[in-house]
């Protein structure tokens, strides 16, 4: 996920910095996908834009065509001072230099939850899958769930009047839904209003 991006709202002296985390929007109609010459980025059956690291040759075309700029390139091999290599997640590989990286919605956690549910012969429960960012967010600002399940918490939240999606006019159909600030007039937020008519 992006470290978060800052936006300025209003004009001096009534100016405020706004902060919005931008992760891969997992577009249904993703501009990054068709441009890859080797199918390293593709749409998986669950609707994720997945990156196949060992298929990637590093043309960086997908990153250029991503309107959200949420694709990251490994310019160098990753390295850590000892003993920090021990903190690496054993469930995912460490990707080499020269390949594209992106938010996967912690695909390893999705896989584990699916496996577990399959073993127990049941469907995945709402809230069972928690990507790392969702797990780590103390005020519960991030919610993950199945948008196809009408009973899920994300669907209930997405029905809010406050909901919007980034750069919706581009027709990318992002899967990430934002809720605008409570109590603030939506049109006052430069970010929000820009989303509707301007970038």
């Amino acid at each position, binding site marked *: 996920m992006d470290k978060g*991006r*800052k*936006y300025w709202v209003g004009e001096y002296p009534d100016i405020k910095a706004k902060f919005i985390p*931008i992760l891969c929007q997992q577009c249904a109609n993703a*501009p990054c996908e*068709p*441009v*890859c*010459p*080797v*199918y390293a980025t593709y749409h998986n059956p669950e609707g994720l834009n997945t990156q196949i690291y060992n*298929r*990637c*040759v*590093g*043309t*960086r*075309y997908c*990153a*250029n*065509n991503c*309107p*959200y*700029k949420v694709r*990251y*390139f*490994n*310019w*160098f*091999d990753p390295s850590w001072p000892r003993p920090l290599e021990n903190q690496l997640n054993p469930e995912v590989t460490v990707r*080499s*230099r*020269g*390949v*594209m990286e992106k938010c996967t919605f912690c695909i390893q956690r999705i896989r584990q939850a699916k496996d577990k549910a399959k073993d127990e012969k049941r469907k995945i429960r709402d809230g069972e899958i928690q990507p790392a960012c969702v797990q780590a967010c103390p005020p519960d600002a991030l919610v993950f769930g199945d948008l196809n399940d009408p009973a899920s918490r994300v669907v209930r939240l997405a029905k809010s009047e406050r909901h919007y999606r980034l*750069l919706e006019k*581009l027709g990318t159909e992002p899967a990430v839904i934002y809720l605008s600030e409570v109590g603030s007039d939506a049109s006052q937020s430069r970010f929000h209003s820009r989303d509707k008519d*301007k*970038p």
Partner: protein
Amino acid sequence: MPANQDFIPETKINRDLLRPVIETTGRFYLTVAILGLVVLNGLVAFMYQMATGMGVAGLNRPVFWGLYITNFVFWVGISHAGTLLSAILRITNAQWRRPMTRAAEALTVFALMIAGLFPLVHLGRTWTFYFLIPYPSQRGIWPNFRSPLLWDAIAIFTYYVGSILFLYISMVPDLGLARDRVGGWRKEIYRVLSLGWRGTAREWHRVKRAGTIMAMLIVPVFVSVHTIVSWDFGMTLVPGWHSTIFGPYFVIGAILSGVAAVITLMIILRWALGLKEYLTLTQFDNLGKILGAVSLAWFYFFFAEFLTIWYGQVPEEMAVIRHRTFGQYALAFWVVLFCNFLIPLPALIFKRVRTSIPAMLVLTIVINVGMFLERYLIIVPSLARQRFPAAWGSYFPSWVEISIMAGAFCGFALMYVIFAKIFPIIPIWEVKEGQHIQRST
């Protein structure tokens, strides 16, 4: 050949045009050594980049494409000269084309070779380049034919094969001549490559027919190749790239830089190989006229692109335009405008300029500096100013990129110098044929 010029005896033509092939001076070895060193430096820089990572280039998010792609587009553009000058002038039966066709065709072939290297240098994992080739693999994975990069690869490969054939077909009679007149280790090369040329009427008929067919076939290919290169940009959602004008705009830009490159090269050949009697002022005068016309056409596209964006005032597009014209890249923008239009067009109006070798040398180099910067200006500022201001960035090439680029320029020169050493760079039979035609009229 110009009408006012005396006919050159055929024995003298043979001697003059085969001399660069037979005699090798110290100057040749010195040139090869210097060019070789720069190429070596570029190779070392490339290996360093592969071993360390793409991070040694000046690239960073959001400017994922930089000098390598600029070079790719630039060299593909340069390569368009060969077909334009050679094929179109052949089809229209312009007699003055005769002494310069081969120089232009060879330029196409070598410029394409250099252009083809850059996408590979640009890859994050160059060693996996074969993933891009549609070969039947056990995994059953094919490349993604929806990607403009693949269209590019196919278009350029087609153009490359076509332009090599085009160059080769018209070279066969000269190879036969060289086989009969040159001894030593070269004789074997000529013997194999001349395909048993005897110079019968039937063979002449076939060479000319094949040359005409190739000329006709290669013109549409040449238009499509640069259009497809422009689609690498036009097909994306990137503000400043997503435009339908890019196809014709890139083709015109390619012709401008290509014709300029042919003139630069002819001046160098004329000086280095003593070809004053063959590459005459007529050629420079006529090429200068073409160059002026193309410069005007280029400005038309340049202007149309900016005017439509500016008039529309779409904020995301305007961010790019402002960045290009008055922002960080303003200097490059104004240099481009001056180099490609404001300086060349008024100058090329005058015959005195068109027939002055030093003036043409300066002008054509100025145009290619301008065209290189124009490619840079299309690629970099658009990426640096995309929709989210928080993801804005900047780019300046690193020493690795500049070394590789210098290596590419010298690599091109090296291949050309060696080609001109092994093969007659002026088509001997075409020059003689031109004289015959002129004499009979």
